[in-house]
């Protein structure tokens, strides 16, 4: 059974492990431990991307489910003479959401506690003039919760420029199903995928085809796929966090199917396939174009993998800030993924190189309205490239 309680527990465990992009070894150790316990076979790439394999019932094109475990964070950029530090963001996020964050700073040997604060000119009272401090990373400072009053004091603690800063998640799980925390992006998606793996393993349900679950570690900086996609993979579905607008009716149960994002449109046919199976399974879904969104699916294409890509997102609010999602949406993601991995592939003969008869069609020429004085597209297509009986429809 896909179990909400067990999924929530995994989520809370994931949220307790700091993992800003570039500092993900511990969360990879945690997930490796979980996968071993479940009894799923997996491999690690050099830098720690996890590729678990769920053997399929039939041979044929393989699938990949992708979820990232790195989060946004920050890094020490400059140690000031007064013992405070300037920081730079890791990943793209606004300093507006950094102010007030409780953080852990990792030096080479130790961890220190601290807080990110607006940077008011030294000597000026924080009560006056704080409204005038501009909102950018040049006006955020790190206060160490240690007796440090000079750059030398900071150096004595072993803290250096380049040290990683992780933001506390501060999770809150409510009876009504809402989960509030930083770093839900994408620990919530990871918890849903982990719950799916547990469920499949318990029920001995096999995916229809070999399914790789890839836990990536550099999504936040847009280079997620780090050598983890094998050549037999033809479909790649990424699970991630997406903000939904609050004016939509009960948006927090839904799954968002991203038709495209800042990197361009996702695969037409795989997206249509997901839409169809969600409808069939009665899982509430909304297809949306996510304007300011990037994902590992795009990173896979940039890295040169010729795969069909799609993005499934759980309903989120206030991404990269104090994020919120709902357990129902995560449950729906897990359920939809179960239906997906046990469904027939979008194209059963998907191969790296195909004859033209195997190339799909995206519209029928007889669909087109006739436009006077324009060349007749239908006749152009049938003259040059007629449909044969072997052609596939979607």
């Amino acid at each position, binding site marked *: 059974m896909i179990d909400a309680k067990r999924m929530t527990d995994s989520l809370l465990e994931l949220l307790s492990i700091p993992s*800003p*992009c*570039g*500092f993900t070894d511990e969360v990879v150790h945690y997930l490796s431990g979980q996968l071993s316990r479940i009894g799923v076979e997996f491999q690690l*790439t*050099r*830098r720690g*991307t996890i590729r678990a394999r769920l053997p399929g019932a039939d041979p044929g094109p393989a699938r990949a489910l992708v979820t990232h475990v790195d989060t946004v964070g920050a*890094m020490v*950029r*400059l140690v000031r003479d007064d013992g405070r530090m*300037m920081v*730079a963001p*890791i*990943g793209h996020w606004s300093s507006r959401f950094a102010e007030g964050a409780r953080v852990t700073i990792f030096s*080479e040997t130790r961890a220190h506690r601290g807080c990110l604060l607006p940077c008011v000119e030294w000597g000026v009272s924080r009560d006056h003039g704080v409204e005038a401090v501009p909102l950018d990373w*040049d006006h955020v400072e790190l206060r160490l919760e240690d007796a440090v009053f000079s750059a030398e004091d900071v150096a004595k603690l072993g803290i*250096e*420029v*380049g040290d*990683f800063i992780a933001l506390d998640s501060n999770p809150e799980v409510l009876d009504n199903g809402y989960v509030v925390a930083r770093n839900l992006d994408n620990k919530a998606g990871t918890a849903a995928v982990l719950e799916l793996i547990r469920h499949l393993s318990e029920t001995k349900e096999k995916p229809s085809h070999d399914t790789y679950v890839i836990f990536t570690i*550099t999504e*936040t*900086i*847009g*280079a997620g*796929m*780090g*050598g*983890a*996609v094998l050549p037999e993979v033809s479909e790649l579905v990424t699970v991630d966090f997406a903000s939904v607008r609050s004016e939509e009716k009960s948006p927090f149960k839904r799954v968002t199917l991203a038709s495209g994002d800042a990197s361009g449109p996702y695969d037409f046919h795989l997206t249509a396939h997901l839409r169809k199976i969600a409808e069939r399974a009665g899982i509430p879904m909304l297809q949306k174009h996510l304007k300011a969104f990037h994902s590992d699916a795009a*990173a896979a294409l*940039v*890295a*040169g*993998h010729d795969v069909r890509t799609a993005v499934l997102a759980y309903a989120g609010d206030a991404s990269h800030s104090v994020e919120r999602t709902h357990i129902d949406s995560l449950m729906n993601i897990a359920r939809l993924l179960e239906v997906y991995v046990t469904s027939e592939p979008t194209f059963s003969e998907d191969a790296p190189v195909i004859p033209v008869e195997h190339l799909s069609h995206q519209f029928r020429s007889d669909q087109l309205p006739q436009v006077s004085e324009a060349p007749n597209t239908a006749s152009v297509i049938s003259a040059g490239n007629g449909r044969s009986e072997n052609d596939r429809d979607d």
Partner: protein
Amino acid sequence: MTEAVAIDCAYLRRCLLEMLAIPSPTGFTSEISRYVCGELARLQIEYRLTRRGTIVARIPGRAGGVARAVANHLDTIGAVVTSLKSNGRMGIAPVGTWSSRFAEGGRVTVFTRDAAYRGQVLPLLASGHAFNQQIDLLPVAWEQVEVRLNESCDDAEGLQALDIRSGDFVAFDADPELEENGFVTARHLDNKAGAAALLAALAHISQRPEAPVLDILAIFTVTEEIGTGASASLSAEVVELVGIDIGPVAPGQNARETGVTLCAQDTSGPFDVRMLRHLKSLCREHGIAYQVDLFRHYYSDANSAVKAGHDVRDALITFGTDGTHGYERTHLSSLESIAGLLCAYAFSQPTDVLARRAS
């Protein structure tokens, strides 16, 4: 502390000045590639060239099958001709990302198919006696500058007669100046200074009696300034990639013109933390001064490799330089530090567990 690495500074200096004399804006790098191949041949280091001129040199290590790569770009910023203007001058567009503010006054060579012409980049209003204070109101933009050729041509036809076309490369003079106190001022220190340091390091590594721990691949890339330098030249055996490049010295930055400036994060995100720590400890062991910095408006070859899907541990070591992509200045000692660190790195144990086992 292990003994400091002895780098041949005279060789480093000679390579630097010779490379600065060879024009090599991105897309126009054949001659600089040839020069580096010549040096590698002289050092008896085997190398191969990719189709587009990226050089992959190899110094065999004690263990095979696993390699370390150091990447350094040979291409520089520059410009191309975009229009032949009716006043006999040329409009230009930048090659690489840089401000036209630093192009103004630049002495240039314009390369046609069979000839090269000398000229200078000027703002559209270039005469103080003619335009007085209007000059100060002219915006800083590539549309506001033009190339004046030192040829008699007063109209577009005159330019055509010289066979100048849109798309011709414009290379900016480096104008190097080497002070006795070790400061070097020139355009294109980015990244010919890095290339000189790498050649000096390769000379040292290849002449040592013992082989490095793993194979060392020295990759001289030719399209860093447009973001694709190391996309296609890494082989699967490469486990670590150290980029060598320029480091911006400016208020609010931690980089210095002396010692090695290690980069912890650039625009593309953090570099591999294990590699950073390894390089820091090598600096400490070998008495090489270092500082760590973050670069906020910066991309390098390491990023192009990771984006292209290579699962390598990446790092970036830089020579701190004042006025980057403008009137650049660094200090020879920082280049010697870079070369010294590269040598220490070549003879150190890999950070990667499996690679360590292979060695």
